[in-house]
Structure formats: C-alpha cells, structure tokens
C-alpha cells in the first residue's frame, strides 16, 4: 500500500468577478482549474518530484496533499500519521520574534511527542542533525543566513516526526553553493532517517539530483511520470523533451537543440484536446480535439501511436 495516493484529484478556483459586475456586464462565472485529474502514488522512503513551469499546478498539488486546500474532485489517501512542510522562503516561514529553540520545539509541544524535560535535548539533537550547533537555539532567525534558516525549517519539520515531508521549492531562494549544502543535507537525512519526500521544483537539474521518480506537470496535468533515471535519459513526452532542451548546457557540448517556442497558454482558457498541442511539434488533428489518457505513464497521442 503506498504511503500517499491521489486519485483523479482536481482543484478549481473561482476567479469570477464580483456578482454585480457579472450581472451588469453579463459575464459568466470563471473557473480556473489549477489541478486537473492528477493521479499520483508515493511509496515510503522514496522521493517523488513534481516539476514544471510557473502556473503548472505543482504547488497546488502540494497544498492539496497537506490539506491546505480541499480537492474539488477526486480522493487523497494518506496511510501515515503526520506530514510536515518545508517552504521556499526561509525568511517568511520562521517567526522573527521567536527563539530558534522555540520554533523547533513547537511541533513537539503541540503534538505532545516528548515529555517536557526532554524537549530541550531533542531540540539540540535536531539542530546538530541539520548541521547547526545546539547553542544556536538561543538565537533569533535574523541572526542566520538564508541557508542556515532553511536548516532551521528542516529541523522544525523533522521535530514533528513526519512520515512524509513536502518540500515546495526548498532551495530556490538560495545561492547555488548553499543550495548544494541543503540538497546534500536532505539526501543524508533521507538515508539516515528513511524519510519520504514530495519535492516540488521548477529546476530540472535540482530534481535530477534528488528524485527517485518524477512527475512533469503542464497546465494542471501530469503529462509524464516515471523513474528519474529513465525520464532524464529518455524523455518521452514532447513537453518533457522541450523542458530538458531548454536547460542551459553547462558542458558547452554544442549539441544541437530544438528551439523552444511559445508560452504557457492562459489557464482560464486551456486549449481543447491535449493542452500542449499549440506548442507541440508533433500535434495533429487528434491532439487538437481528444484529451490524451495516461498510457504507460505518458499522456501523449504521438507517443501512444508510436509517431515519436
């Protein structure tokens, strides 16, 4: 039984104008479907990464999983006790008026995980575990750099002894050398504590370093889902290929690349059929009218028909 399962989960947002405007200007209600029938499973001990460009719905999926949003349709089943979240901005996610030891202790206190006298020791252990020192507990968040703050966020998340950790762009606000420290720390912690991660990122290179499995999202849908090794070595969906092609080539191998064209369409008026068809070099009539089903982890007519 997977630790977490999403079955055909959708989430709609009502972005209509106020009632009076709608009546006077005869506008219909406008519904934005941010997540569109997403199926996902997360096994214990693995890292599932969701990757995509802004507005693809990856953060909404994270918020659906932790229950910050309720799904409009579909079902989410979680077979664990607790989950915790690590946010992108380590400046906004730590209370500036609290000492670090109180920030880290909060989940322990609220969940009643430890007897009062042992909380202090547990907090010190957690701080050491994420590469800070026990004395850092006495300080306030502003005394730390961005990378150190993200370590505090991780310590706080671990304090709740979660079965699942949701990381929404945990390194996007960090410099690259600090990002390497945090990614390495997350990998080490996973190995040591057999953690399960759902890792949300727009950065394919980061995802390829941490993920066991990867879901590629586009306009609210998962268009390709697969083992990280095969997905990065042999991307199948045209959108995955395009994304991989767009990543700047640090090797400077001068390999030819297909130029990226177009932009993500307005999610209020998603194209009919396959949502990627206006940008897809392989689109045909069927793609323009029929929504591709997920077959063998890829939602693409061209792949299914063997055209690419």
């Amino acid at each position, binding site marked *: 039984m997977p630790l977490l399962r999403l079955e055909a989960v959708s989430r709609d947002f009502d972005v209509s104008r106020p009632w009076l405007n709608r009546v006077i200007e005869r506008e219909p209600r406008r519904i934005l479907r941010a997540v569109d029938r997403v199926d996902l499973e997360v096994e214990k001990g693995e890292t599932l990464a969701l990757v995509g460009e802004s507005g693809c719905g990856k953060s909404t999926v994270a918020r659906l999983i932790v229950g910050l949003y309720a799904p409009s349709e579909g079902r989410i089943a979680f077979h664990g006790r607790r989950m915790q979240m690590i946010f992108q901005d380590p400046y906004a996610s730590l209370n500036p008026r609290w000492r670090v030891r109180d920030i880290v202790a909060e989940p322990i206190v609220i969940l009643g995980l430890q007897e009062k006298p042992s909380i202090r020791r547990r907090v010190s252990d957690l701080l050491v575990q994420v590469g800070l020192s026990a004395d850092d507990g006495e300080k306030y968040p502003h005394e730390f750099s961005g990378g150190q703050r993200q370590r505090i966020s991780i310590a706080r998340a671990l304090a709740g002894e979660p079965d699942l950790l949701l990381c929404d762009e945990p390194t996007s606000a960090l410099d690259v050398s*600090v990002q*390497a420290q945090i990614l*390495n720390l997350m990998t080490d912690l996973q190995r040591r504590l057999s953690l399960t991660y759902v890792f949300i990122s727009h950065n*394919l290179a980061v995802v390829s370093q941490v993920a066991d499995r990867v879901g590629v999202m586009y306009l609210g849908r998962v268009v390709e889902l697969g083992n990280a090794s095969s997905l990065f070595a042999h991307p199948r969906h045209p959108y995955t290929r*395009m994304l991989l092609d767009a*990543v700047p*080539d640090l090797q400077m191998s001068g390999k030819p690349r297909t*130029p990226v064209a177009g*932009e993500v369409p307005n999610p209020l008026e998603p194209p009919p059929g396959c949502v990627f068809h206006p940008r897809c070099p392989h689109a045909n009539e069927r793609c323009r009218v029929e929504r591709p089903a997920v077959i063998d982890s890829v939602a693409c007519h061209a792949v299914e028909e063997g055209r690419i």
Partner: protein
Amino acid sequence: MILEVQDLRVEFPSRRGTLVALDAVSFGIKPGEVLGVVGESGAGKSMTGLAVIGLLERPGRIAGGEVRLEGRRIDNLPHEEMRKVRGRKIGVVFQDPLTSLNPLYTIGQQLVETITTHLPLTRNQGRERAISLLKEVGIPGAEARLHHYPHQFSGGMRQRVVIALAIAAEPALIIADEPTTALDVSIQAQIIALLKRLAQTRGTAVMLITHDMGVIAETSHRVAVMYAGRIVEVGPVRDVIHAPRHPYTVGLMGSIPRIASRKTRLVQIDGAMPRLNAIPRGCAFNPRCPKRFERCFADRPDLLPAGTSEAACWLHAPAAA
C-alpha cells in the same frame, strides 16, 4: 574596447567605519562581446553594473579607479551629462521588466519617446523604428502591440519589450542584470538566444550579470567570477567552466546541479560568503578554501595569470615569489 573598468573601488561610509563593496575591479568588454559576471548574492556583481552606469545608491560612492566608455571617462561626469550618456550609449535590462516599464503609458509611447529623445528622428519615423525594434526582439503583431500597456504582456514578452527599449537608441553597451531570473526555463532560453543574437548582429558590448552559470555558458565569450567584492577569476568561458583555476570557482562549478540520470552528491563549499564588515585578512576566501596555506592569511592576492585565464589565488604565484 567599448567599456574599460580600471581598479574600481566602491565604498559605503557607515557609522562603524567604511565598508568596501568593490575593490580593485578591472575588466574590459570589446564590441560584440558578451562578458558574463557571475557570483553569489552579495558578491558585488550588481554593484559593479550600477557603478558603471552611475546609479549607485547613496551613501555608496566610487572611491577610486575609473570607468571608460568608448575611451571617454564617465565615472566623474556631472549628473546631467551622465544621464545623457546613460540614455544614449548604455541600455539597461533589469530582472523585473515591470520596474523598467511605466504602467500608465503604452509601450508604443515609451518606445517612441526613448527613440525621439536620443535620435534625431520625427515622431512618425520613431514609430516606424519602434515597430521594427519590436519585430527584431520577436514580438508577434508588433504594429498592434504598440497600443498595449505593459500589463497586457506576458512576463517573457515584457522582457522582450524592455530589451527593445534598451537597444532603442543604438547603445554601445548593454548591461543586463539577471535578465532571465524571473522567467520560466523555456522563456529563459528564448531571451538568452535573443541577447546573443543582438550582440552579434549589432556589435554591441554586453555585460551580463547573473548568478546562473548555465546562462553564462550559453551566451558569454568571457566570464568574470566575483567573490566578496573582487574579481577572483576571469577568462574565456570554456576554460573557466572546464578548467576553473580559483578554488572558489572549482567549488562553485561543482555545486551546480546538472541533469543527471542518477542521484549524485554535489560538491559542497562549507560556510558562506563573508559579510562586507567581516571580510577576513588576506584572501577573502581563505576560511572556506580547501587549499589555503600561510600566505593566504597574510596577503591579498591580485589577479595572476593561470593558463588562459587569470585567478586571484596564491596557488598561481610564480614559484620564485
């Protein structure tokens, strides 16, 4: 050389003494050349750009060195004259296109105003030129788009408009500060290609400031790596990427995640860049450097020849010294 910067020093006087934000920064950019300036936050890369265009925020000031544009010294020009140089000779592209565009005017009005202010053209000629600029930066339906306001464009298209504005007066130099950082990866690739093409076809010198080594690999001819207010390594982009000479560059290159078909452990530089008020004696990188030795704690290294590049590191000092 279009741009020559020699021994540039920028200071911020503060109550607790003077902070040195840039120290002994020297570089040049040739026509048609893209110089990438890379570094982590606080390394001084944006500060270098601002110092060149004379837009340092007070109390920051240029405390030494000189900046020459097409041979003419511009760092000591009076305010009004520098404003003209900026408009006519230097185009600037910032990270957030919305800060460079006025939300109350159509992009046509903004383009035509820029063009007619700096070039001897009538409004009609200016309009023609605006249309051709929009076409050049790849905006479809350029003629109709002139009447649109900035909010009616997507992020990528807005950045194209800003680039059109930057090249409107045919500047000799474009300074692009994180021009693709706010954009999605597929849009980023398009903007990179555009900047590269403009430098090539127009012979404009481009100073591309970014934290993203991948963007530099794609666009630049040479790259300058900054750390704690100084250039620590400068050289042809291929050499700096494949054979970095400064231990900081080595660590930086290793810490960049690459598309890998399996999980790997990234090279890690422990610690963080020092704050401006706590730059260590000797080489500023010495607390984090795996290869430090006695001299690194005592003397600050200047750029020394290292292969085809230059690196500010005592490892490259001639053996006799």
